[in-house]
């Protein structure tokens, strides 16, 4: 069966996600209205400005559609996408979706001058770590997390990649660095990294 992954196109870094999905041979589709959710088998919430995303989710009445979709399909969020997936944040201007049991702080590392590329160690399972260099742009910090959240990557003592059930949140931008492992993990059921195959490893 051919699957199609939606990329939320309200505002932000959606282009590079389309490019990444194309690179790994998966169809992608720009999601802008509620009926678009019928056409997709997974969703990416890209980076961008969380104030803008939060407002437009309300304006175009997409919150419930995403919450419903999350019950049965994989969702991945990067940067502002991670912020939108969180349970709570330190800023009343943004209303998160509450999908991931995490508490985040926006722009935790400062302004653009502090944006950087960093070495991140991705723990695939107990035996296997993968070292990646990925880009943080005005990045959020995951300050706290609940019991069902699995930390799969850390940077300077803070989690930067978290996984729970069918949800993946990243504080950085693998799509900028051409890193396809996370897209494969969530959306490519042929991949050795596919989340349904890895679950038992993480749970162990």
């Amino acid at each position: 069966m051919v699957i199609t992954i939606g990329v939320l196109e309200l505002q932000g870094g959606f282009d590079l996600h389309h490019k990444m999905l194309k690179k790994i041979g998966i169809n992608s589709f720009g999601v802008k209205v509620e009926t678009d959710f019928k056409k997709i088998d997974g969703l990416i919430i890209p980076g961008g400005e969380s104030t803008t995303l939060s407002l437009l989710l309300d304006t175009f009445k997409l919150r419930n559609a995403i919450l419903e979709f999350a019950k049965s399909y994989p969702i991945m969020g990067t940067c502002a996408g991670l912020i939108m997936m969180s349970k709570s944040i330190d800023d009343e201007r943004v209303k998160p979706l509450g999908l991931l049991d995490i508490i985040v702080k926006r722009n935790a590392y400062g302004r653009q001058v502090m944006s950087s590329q960093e070495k991140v160690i991705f723990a695939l399972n107990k035996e296997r770590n993968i070292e990646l260099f990925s880009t943080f742009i005005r990045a959020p910090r995951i300050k706290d997390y609940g019991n069902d959240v699995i930390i799969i990557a850390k940077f300077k003592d803070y989690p930067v990649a978290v996984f729970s059930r069918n949800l993946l949140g990243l504080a950085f931008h693998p799509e900028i660095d051409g890193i396809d492992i996370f897209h494969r993990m969530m959306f490519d059921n042929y991949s050795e990294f596919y989340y349904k195959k890895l679950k038992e490893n993480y749970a162990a």
Partner: protein
Amino acid sequence: MSNNSFEIKVGLAEMLKGGVIMDVTNSDQAKIAEDAGACAVMALERIPSDIRKDGGISRMSDPEMILGIQKAVSIPVMAKCRIGHFAEAQILETLEVDFIDESEVLTPADEHNHVWKHNFKIPFVCGCRDLGEALRRIAEGAAMIRTKGEAGSGNIVEAVRHMRTVMTEIKRATRLDKEELIAEAKRIGAPVSLLQQVAKLGKLPVPNFAAGGIATPADASLMMQLGAETVFVGSGIFKSDDPAARAKAVVEATTHFENSEIVAKASTGLKNAMKGLDMSEIAKEDRLQERGW
């Protein structure tokens, strides 16, 4: 680790796509812009239509005003330096603005050279009217390009002209032979290597936004359909009769630029747009777009 690579600069521009960047002159306007869904604000002392009216030399804004706006909002804050005025750019860098616009809206400081933007940790955006100008700016280190339009005119005609020109020249480049690309690079005054990249990609190597004359939701939709990836709205919002509503409407129309029903709804019931100027009312020597080399 590494924090000033070109990729990181372009990365922020990528995150601004599909959005609206609004000119603001104080913290109150900045908050209105943020609440309306702007993905960034441009902090400047006078918006272009007032610069045009007041005349005189237009310079970088007072740091105090920029710092005030940075405090007021959480979205990226951009600020302008004069063309070639790298000392103003250095000041903006110490203020940690998120993007520097080396802008023709301010009075140029150097009539031959632009800032060498690779020296800075902060990304730059520059204006262009054609592909050659865009690629010269990228060669100097611009991480984002915006077509110039005619700032402060409230008239979309120049923005359309410049976007059409850039897009036509890109399409042309994709059809040329290797040999012909060298002659084309010479003709348009572009670095050969960058023109070769454009020919291969079928687009600019950095995000391409539109500015200069956008005043309505329909203007935003038009520019997005012509190939802009985000729009800058300067005088169009805060020179209109109801900035908050118009700002929100432009944001909605930019997101759904291809959905005419949503653009129609966003356009409905807005108070008057800024009055605007016909190009015949702006003498050639007074056109801001002529600045930049």
